[in-house]
């Protein structure tokens, strides 16, 4: 798969890198409350957003294609 390089995407990459750096800096500098184990992982939300999205796609597509999707007139007969 090729990596997209349009002008909007360049902006996107810049924002992406800034968000990670800001997150890591914030984790190092600020003393924030730790509620869960993952609060100690730097840039946890980035990882969570990325993986969580894949998990959701996987679960919904699997459920849909193997169990739930039917032709549109399914209830009509």
């Amino acid at each position, binding site marked *: *798969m090729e990596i*997209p390089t349009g002008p909007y995407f360049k902006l*996107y990459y810049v*924002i*992406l890198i800034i*968000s*990670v750096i*800001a*997150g890591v800096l*914030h984790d190092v500098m*600020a003393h*924030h409350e730790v*509620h*869960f184990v993952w609060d100690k992982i730097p*840039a*946890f*939300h*980035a*990882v*969570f*957003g*990325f993986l*969580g*999205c*894949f*998990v*959701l*796609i996987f*679960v*919904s*597509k699997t*459920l*849909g294609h193997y*169990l*739930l*999707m*039917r*032709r*549109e007139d*399914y*209830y009509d007969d």
Partner: protein
Amino acid sequence: MTIEWIHPGLILIFGALLIPFIRNRKLKQAYFLLLPVIALIDLLMMQHGSYWNVNFMEYELVLGRVDRLSIVFAYVFVIAAICMNIYALHLERDWEHVSAMMYAGAGLGAVFAGDLFTLYIFWEVMAWASLFLIWFRGTKAAHNAGFRYIMWHLAGGVILLGGIVMYTQSTGSIEFTSFTQFWGTGLCYYLILLGFIINAAVPPLHPWLADAYPEATVTGAVYMTAFTTKSAVYVLARGFPGVEILMWLGAIMAVYGVIFAMLQNDGRRLLAYHIVSQVGYMVCGVGMGIFGLAAGEMAINGATAHAFCHILYKALLFMGMGVVLEVTGKSKFTELGGLYKYMPVTFWLYMIGAFSISGFPLFNGFVSKTMTVEASAMLHEPIIWLLLEGASIGTFFCIALKLPRNVWFGGEKPASIEVKKPPKNMLAGMGLTAALCVILGVYPEPLYNILPYAVEFVPYTAGHVIAMSQLFIFAFIPFWIMREKFRGEPEIVLDTDWFVRKPGRWFIRFCENTLIKYAEFDEKRCFIFPALFERLSKAIRSIQTGYLTYYLQIVLLIVMVTLVLASIGGMLL
């Protein structure tokens, strides 16, 4: 006698009935816009207290309980009604306006009800009034979906009524207070909760929502997003705060809605599943709302604030998709695409709603959703936290990425669809709603000040802003990789209503076949039963005229008589 309180719901309900009698169109429109404004002024002048206490047999009905919890919901109902009336201003059908305003008024009535009996009456009016917003679409699909919709609500209503009667029998009171301390001590509490969560669309009792809302009229669907589920959130927050099962149901619901939304092909059905998902945050917040804990107070505040913000951005999203449906006549992804050139304003206004529901910083979802999620962190509930935060990813994915790409981008506009110009009032309604979403997102203090408990929560910390930004920025990557897989497929997705619809049909077919067989058998002998059956069915058919307005008039009459009696009682005191 001074009138110390006027019921804002009854302003809308009785006020709506004058709409068909105004002949001049401009005057009619002005009046329609003015109705919720009058109700808002009424609300602004209100003091906390208990009003319109009516003695009914040996019980005391309370039509106006005004306190910190009910007033927040009342405010947002009325503000939303103003935005929605602007959006619906161009409609020619007066009776649709009437049912919309009766629906909104009944929502207010349920929120201000201080006893279970009054609550039940308004609960039913809400179901019936909203039914016509589906039926006015006029299609066969809408007709059938409307029937299923009212069946669910009638079932829910009967369960609720059963619970109320049993509660009254065992305690001798009809007062609507918190049942949390009695939770688990009697069947009546389970029944009342069951009645409430059917209206809150908690899975597996949610399919009426995703079934009916996309079939409603363009403007009717916008009204429906606001009142039924959110009045259910209100009654849950009033009756069952801190009941643990609600926390789990809510968190599961948030993810459930998202997973089903991802598969949808109809834009408005996708949005409808996100109502299920978003109401999940509120139900979860109510479940965490343990009395006396700081986290519990924050959870109730979060649920209430989220209901407030949700009504605004969800109305905005349905308005956006409604404009698409209005100008193209289509709402399925497989029939849409490339519309940005033709309707950029609609797109940008819709995107404000999309960022709001995702919970992006500077939009109103951010200031309310983070509160509920933070409450789950304070209670140290890791699974709840993961479910709620994970649902946010899916929300952003569906509403801010999948839907816009399939409707406004993703190649050229299909040649088969024509794009009309949207009526200006629709865009004006969207503009006002979008403005409110941004204003509350940037400056949430007015909302925080009216929440049930004092707010100590600060949404705009560096930590929150960075976390939410990272979540969405990184969720974009999987979407971009998989974007062609989310084009929309021309299929339907089965849901829990399968368990009612299919076996129900089998049962009816079984009965029909049995009857036919019996009739055939009988025909050979004596002809009595077939003749009787024919008589009976003819008699029943002659009662039914099939005219919508005729049914509407009967329903209106019943509602009117009840409300007139109740309000005369209220005024006299």
